[in-house]
């Protein structure tokens, strides 16, 4: 019973040891001959389409539904695993996309990962990964918000749960956004108003910046989300019927009584379902989340393991973990070239809950954003772009830049516009401001960045980006902690008395438990059982060891026992863990 399992476990451990080598090999082979599918653009798709593709996937993928969204859409995962006997018991990685709901492209990205894993399951890199690691992919964790990308009117908004009375007028949801100019997009609305806090960026009047009163600037524009003022309170689109956000509804650093937080953590069905997905699969050791947040490009705020304010922990990644996370940051930058920072905070997020409350490695990735870099472009392209601006935007007096007193940097939005101007196919990302006669406010302008402008890479970039992300994913399996019994020997001390020695080793890069898991105790310790048959008895030592901490990169644990045993076949050692595999051995006579 124990023999085949032990052999399998050893094979796994060996595979784990080999992975770092072939991860590099994979990186090379990808460069040399990218698979045909990698050059196909990866584009956003509605939930129903993602679902149909996922269901049809087959091969090494198993359809794994896990709940329903608030509006009744199916929440689903794919379990991708090799031919292992019980793949659900292998150490696992979970890839989750679009918990935010505003990142529909990442859903296509995650599903493409699953499709790649299936299509390339026979390739050595992928098959070795799947022999030792189970991969779960949740392509679309927030389908209700996801669908806004494909609605008749596009609206980039996270909220899918119950609304509150945002403007405290005793009514809830009475003044939502609406597509006033009928262009199928909710953009922005700006009104000239002495109460306004915004001015046009002098370097690009399409972009808005906050007036800096310390520099004598006076606000010109009041800026709202595009919509009516149905409750006539001189505030526009300020009370949507939905407010609670799935990715603000997790328990870690949850903000009580904020509209986006939801009534209580896990009140949102999508949030609850994802929590339960993880709790029911304790083999998951590492989570990769595609969304608005990032903790790889920008080093997250770190805190000492014992940084408590009285009993409550300081928010942040525990130092020891932040160091390892930074290593992933380097690898990520190398493989993907992604340099931009993510958006949003930690409060109530899935990414933070997975790390801070469950002790999982949580890699947060924001794969793409509108670049801020000045694009390389020809002089003609520049003048062309300028001419177009002039047509669309309000008249802009030509000024000699030397006359300007302050040498101001272009605002981030102005930089984004510069990139849009330089890329002919990307003009959809900005809607030029156009005059509009508002039913409640009178003269105003509608325009600004289009919904999802910052969340969807250009089609031409998408394949390359997806391939790089996939490559990064492939490197992660080798790092998962995998403990094994490296030695279990018996020294005969005369008669049937034996001294047993065992050595447990974690050869992988990641420790058995990260610093967060050690303090939260959310990951159970490795369990080492000395199992004695009928002919053997314990003379000294602990029958059961619970091993909580075991470093990565060769961390070890040693134990000794004295047993009486006529035959060593009666002396077995069993090692079991939550998410680092298992192993078993019969004692061997020491040389």
């Amino acid at each position: 019973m124990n023999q085949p399992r032990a052999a399998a476990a050893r094979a796994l451990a060996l595979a784990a040891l080999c992975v770092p080598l072939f991860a590099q090999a994979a990186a090379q082979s990808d460069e040399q001959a990218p698979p045909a599918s990698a050059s196909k653009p990866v584009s956003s798709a509605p939930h129903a389409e993602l679902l149909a593709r996922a269901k049809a996937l087959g091969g090494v993928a198993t359809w794994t539904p896990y709940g329903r969204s608030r509006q009744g859409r199916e929440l689903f995962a794919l379990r991708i695993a090799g031919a292992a006997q019980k793949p659900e018991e292998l150490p696992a990685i979970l890839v989750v996309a679009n918990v935010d709901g505003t990142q529909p492209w990442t859903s296509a990205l995650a599903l493409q990962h699953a499709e790649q894993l299936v299509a390339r399951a026979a390739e050595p890199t992928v098959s070795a990964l799947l022999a030792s690691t189970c991969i779960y992919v949740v392509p679309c964790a927030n389908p209700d918000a996801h669908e806004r990308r494909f609605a008749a009117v596009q609206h980039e908004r996270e909220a899918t749960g119950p609304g509150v009375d945002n403007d405290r007028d005793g009514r809830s949801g009475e003044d939502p956004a609406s597509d006033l100019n009928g262009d199928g997009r909710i953009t922005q609305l700006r009104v000239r108003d002495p109460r306004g806090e915004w001015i046009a960026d002098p370097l690009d009047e399409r972009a808005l910046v906050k007036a800096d009163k310390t520099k004598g600037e006076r606000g010109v524009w009041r800026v709202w989300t595009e919509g009516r003022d149905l409750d006539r309170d001189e505030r526009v689109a300020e009370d949507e019927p939905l407010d609670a956000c799935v990715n603000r509804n997790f328990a870690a650093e949850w903000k009580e009584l904020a509209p986006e937080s939801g009534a209580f953590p896990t009140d949102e069905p999508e949030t609850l379902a994802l929590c339960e997905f993880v709790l029911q699969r304790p083999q998951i050791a590492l989570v990769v989340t595609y969304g608005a947040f990032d903790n790889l490009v920008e080093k997250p705020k770190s805190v000492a393991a014992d940084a408590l304010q009285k009993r409550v922990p300081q928010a942040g990644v525990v130092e020891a973990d932040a160091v390892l996370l930074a290593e992933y940051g380097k690898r990520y930058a190398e493989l993907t070239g992604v340099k931009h920072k993510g958006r949003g905070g930690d409060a109530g997020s899935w990414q933070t809950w997975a790390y801070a409350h469950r002790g999982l490695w949580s890699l947060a990735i924001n794969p793409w954003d509108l670049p801020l870099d000045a694009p390389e472009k020809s002089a003609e392209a520049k003048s062309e772009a300028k001419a177009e601006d002039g047509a669309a935007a309000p008249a802009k007096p030509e000024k000699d830049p030397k006359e300007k007193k302050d040498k101001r940097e272009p605002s981030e939005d102005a930089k984004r516009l510069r990139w849009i101007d330089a890329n002919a196919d990307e003009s959809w990302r900005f809607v030029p401001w156009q005059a509009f006669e508002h039913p409640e406010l009178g003269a105003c302008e509608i325009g600004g960045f289009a919904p999802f402008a910052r969340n969807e890479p250009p089609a031409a970039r998408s394949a390359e980006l997806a391939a790089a992300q996939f490559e990064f994913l492939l490197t992660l399996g080798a790092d998962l902690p995998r403990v094994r019994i490296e030695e279990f020997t018996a020294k005969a001390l005369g008669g049937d008395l034996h001294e047993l020695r065992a050595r447990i080793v974690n050869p992988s890069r990641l420790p058995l438990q990260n610093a967060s898991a050690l303090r939260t105790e959310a990951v159970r310790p490795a369990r080492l059982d000395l199992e004695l048959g009928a002919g053997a008895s314990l003379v000294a030592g602990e029958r059961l060891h619970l091993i909580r901490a075991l470093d990565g990169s060769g961390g070890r644990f040693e134990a000794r026992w004295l047993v009486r045993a006529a035959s060593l076949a009666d002396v077995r050692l069993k090692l079991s863990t939550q998410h680092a595999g298992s192993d078993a051995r019969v004692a061997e006579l020491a040389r």
Partner: protein
Amino acid sequence: MNTLLLSLALLGAQAAPATPAPDKSFSGLAAGAAPRVEIAWNRLYDYDEIHAHLDRLVALYPQFLSMQVIGHSVENREMRVYTLTNPATGAHDTKPAMWVDGNIHGNEVQGGEAVVYVAWYLLENYGAVPRVTELVDGATFYLCPMLNPDGRASWFRDAHNASSSRSGRQPFDDDGDGLYDEDGSDDLDGDGSITQMRKYTPGVGNLRLNPDDPRLMDPVPPNERGVRGDWTMLGSEGFDNDGDGRNNEDAVGGYDMNRAWPSGWQPEWIQGGAGPYPLYWPETRCVARFWIAHPNIAGVQSYHNAGGMILRGPGYEAFGEYPRDDVAVYDELGRDGEAMLPYYRYMIIWKDLYSVFGGSVTYAYESLGVISFTNELWNTDQMFGDRAEQNSGRGANHKFDDRLLMGAGFTPWRKFNHPLYGEVEIGGFKKDVGRVPPSFLIEEMTHRNALFAIRHAEAMPKVSIVSTVVSDLGGGLSAIDVEFRNERIIPTRTARAAQKGIGKPDLFTLEGAGIEVLAGGFRTDRFRPERLDFAEREPAALRSERGIPGRGEVRVRWIVRGRGDATVRWQGEKARAVSAPVKLP
């Protein structure tokens, strides 16, 4: 034969729904009184019996009491809420409601009886005691006798001590060995309670038998003469069932449903028993959802045991003190409670007890803005009253047990052959000693605590319109001055609710077909009518976050054009709406 017939007749009368006779009551005045539903208040009842009592009340008072199942426990027991009000005077959700629950900790059973008592007392006295009648007509009670029915059922059914079975029954791996609930206590002597194990270890123990009472053991502190004790305590009765070298370290469950609520919730390693996320257990989640769905809840009481406390939040120092106006409300009710409940003290959880993250009553206040208390029922000081000299020391339980219970509460030490420790002695107090009162003090406990919840319910806001005055301003304009009063202690909106924007603001309206409301606002000066905090828009429907203070007034002035009949109205979440006609000549 005659006696038998008479009893049958009485039973029949009890079973059939009867109209309450107004001259009968059971208010607490004992001479010649008899309740319509006899419940022996000198006993503790199991899950089914608690519901059976309430169901008898439903059968006799169907017009006032109804039952709903709001969810199911881990072991699939019904989570029941009984709604008590007089629907003839308005639906339950149009009235301020008092939520009363008990037994969120499975072993803290007597809260269940106290909840039943609330229902029983109100129903028995409706129509006879005017204040009870007013309360049942004007308010609603939501009564949840057992928030942890599985824990209660186990405490009655299985061997326990006074403190075990606090948790619910969902498996939990307390010792982190990957096995669930594999090493609980064991009732080795079969007395139905989990008592203690001690072993005679001559010359190497740290205890000696008390020479006056060998049931007790005295510590032997280290001393220069090298004298040591002869006895060693080995903890609770039980085996090392899982062979891990520890006894009784992984019993059934192992969590705390009163650390599971969202306000200030912290994970397991900060707050033991919290679970993987707030409201993880179905018992807690269905109650929280009920609260959220019933914004008319204006008071919460959660009965626990023991120690004689009237507790309020905050549960943790760093959360900061509650707003001053709310503290004043808490203090008034809390101090009243101290008078009503001898041996009980009004306390702040973090300051006077210990830090608690994720308690239910702190959630009720901090997230829902509802004045809420936890009463810790029964204080062992009550055993001997003021005779402190008899009531001190470790022997107090024995003195009481010996004199007033003929020693029945104690299992005498008896030898037992333990597989690991060899010969030991097993003995100690039974599970119903220490945290629940003896039978003859249960009625007093339930009555006083039920009346405290009823007193809390009487403090819920009640709004009236004191006066409406119409003044002619000339030129076809009139001013309408209306004074709204909250007669009770609790404001229509607590300061917490106002600060955090919880629930809906209060609404003050003026409506009339023949009038145009030109302006309206809250008067800031009682004597100078022009000093008006007047609304920027919708002057006919004024909103207020602050609501009407406890035992205070809000004065509203409207400036209108026109004539004819109009109606002024107040509407809020936590009191009954009121309106009054106004005539503009």
